[in-house]
């Protein structure tokens, strides 16, 4: 792993909310092409970690490096422009827009046409619109949402709303994809379709950081796993290594074995 520099490097990440330590001194890295899972009980700090990487929260201490540069002072939309995409755990879909339009928003990071080009109807704007539609159609197809494309997004069943978050994140062709519990609320077949999609993305060389509770899901997909509990890293390694780790067993069963 040392030969290739990591795409994402989180060093000493700490975040307090008042007296609560949501994260304490967390180190984590994601190598190019790696699928890295973050697991841990509820309240372990997984979503907080994602928000520090995406820029939705500011770290109390620690640094975040991406592609060889520090990004922890960049605004979230600038991080998106560099190729970091997030499907949040608890974010609603964009209301009053169709499924396709929702996904098209995800292409914002890789497109440029401004208001003037749009108002004047310049060819540049039209070309880019067509391009965005194509990107969105492909992302919808991959997420299995093509049949829903023209529906109002807020009328989708929960499972499809989760898939929509993934499609939106994919639409901008990210280099690093952060998925916060993408399979929660999905039923069996949808779940395995999502696992298939993630596997495919990994095959294409995308770097993925994944939070997921489903053990089978993690076992199937993750190259490496980092385990958080009460804001600290309590174990890391391959799935086979961490599943037998006493600290992990304690954290999940609650109390000493």
């Amino acid at each position, binding site marked *: 792993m040392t030969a290739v520099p990591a795409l994402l490097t989180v060093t000493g990440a700490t975040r307090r909310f008042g007296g609560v330590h949501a994260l304490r001194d967390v180190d984590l890295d994601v190598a190019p092409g790696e699928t890295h899972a973050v697991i841990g009980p509820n309240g372990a700090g997984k979503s907080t970690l994602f928000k520090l990487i*995406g*820029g*939705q929260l500011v770290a109390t201490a620690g640094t975040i490096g991406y592609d060889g540069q520090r990004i922890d002072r960049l*605004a*979230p*939309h600038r991080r*998106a*422009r560099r190729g970091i*995409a*997030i499907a*949040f755990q608890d*974010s*609603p*879909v*964009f*209301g*009053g*827009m169709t499924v396709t*339009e*929702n996904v*098209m*928003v*995800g*292409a*914002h*990071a*890789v*497109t440029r*046409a*401004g*208001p003037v080009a*749009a*108002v004047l*109807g310049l060819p540049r*704007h*039209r070309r*880019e*619109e*067509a391009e*965005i*539609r194509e990107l969105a159609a492909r992302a919808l197809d991959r997420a299995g949402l093509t049949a829903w494309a*023209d529906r109002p997004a807020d009328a989708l069943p929960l499972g499809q709303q989760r898939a929509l*978050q993934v499609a*939106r*994140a994919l639409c*901008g062709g990210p280099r690093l994809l952060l998925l916060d519990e993408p399979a929660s609320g999905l039923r069996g077949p949808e779940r395995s379709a999502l696992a298939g999609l993630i596997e495919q993305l990994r095959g294409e060389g995308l770097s993925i950081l994944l939070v997921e509770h489903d053990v089978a899901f993690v076992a199937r997909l993750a190259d490496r796993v980092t385990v958080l509990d009460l804001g600290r890293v309590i174990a890391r390694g391959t799935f086979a290594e961490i599943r037998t780790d006493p600290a992990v067993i304690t954290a999940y069963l609650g109390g000493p074995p």
Partner: protein
Amino acid sequence: MTERSERHDRVFWSSLFSSRQDGIRWWWIAGALIVSAVPLLLAPGQLTTFVLLGLSAMAVVGLSLLMGYAGQVSLGQASFTAIGAYTSGLLALHHTPPLLALLAAPIVAALAAAGVGVPILRLRGHQLAFATLALQLILLSVLGDADWAGGAVGLQGLPYLSIGGFELDADLDYAYLVLAGVLLVSLIAHRLVRSRVGRGLRALATGETAAEASGVPVGAYRLLVFAVSAAFAGLAGGIYSFFLGYLAPGSFPVLLSIEYVVMAVVGGLGSIGGALLGAALITVVVQLLTTLATQPGMPSYAPSVLSYAVYALLLIAVVLFVPKGIVPTLRRSS
């Protein structure tokens, strides 16, 4: 046109208008044709009302964008009408060609909005509403005291607007100028909303975090809508100054800002048709009330008390019965 670009065009247009929206587009064209015949049928006094209605509609299209897409309320939108009007008025009185003076109005209003918008747009919800209201009060008192702006008396003796040697000296000319203005701002708003930027704006109205994480520069877009809404109001103000030929701070009271908000809310936020309908409806209602309130025997404060009362009642009625505003509600049920 080659076959390929024709097909591209068709794909482009069908991407703008789904089949249901096709119907809406025809409504628009039919509506525009009917409305453009209206000035010919109006009596002189009614023409003035028509022009003022159109000017309000221009400002309200912008305000509706701001409130519907950036999720911000402005209680001082008439500040930008005033800034546009004074820009045109001052430039025209200082021998700038009237058309240039008119073009400067939206630009200066937009720049003013961008200038104050940077600190103001950090504020949220009610804070922005109060900040814009304060802005208008400050502006009015500055204009009322400024010698260069004519103080409380304002500016007088503005020339008529002339476009390419044609002097607009009749109310009917201004009626058509205003119609063109309404069409222009509606088209700009429509294209903006349907574009990549518009999608970003619509997204941030309901999901700011996810929009920003998708690469939408939330702050810049908010500022953009604020500036665009100010430009529309500023253009209306510019036309107003040439139409009346004089200006005073009293022409832009806070009541005018409130009227804009009521028009936008009644018609339906974020809907261009709603903005136009709201402006028309409120203008007609206010006109009827003013006629009533200026009957002999009515106290002098009757007109303003009545309009405040009607604004309040209309707002309450809309919030209770058609919370999305008239046009979006009609559209949903059709």
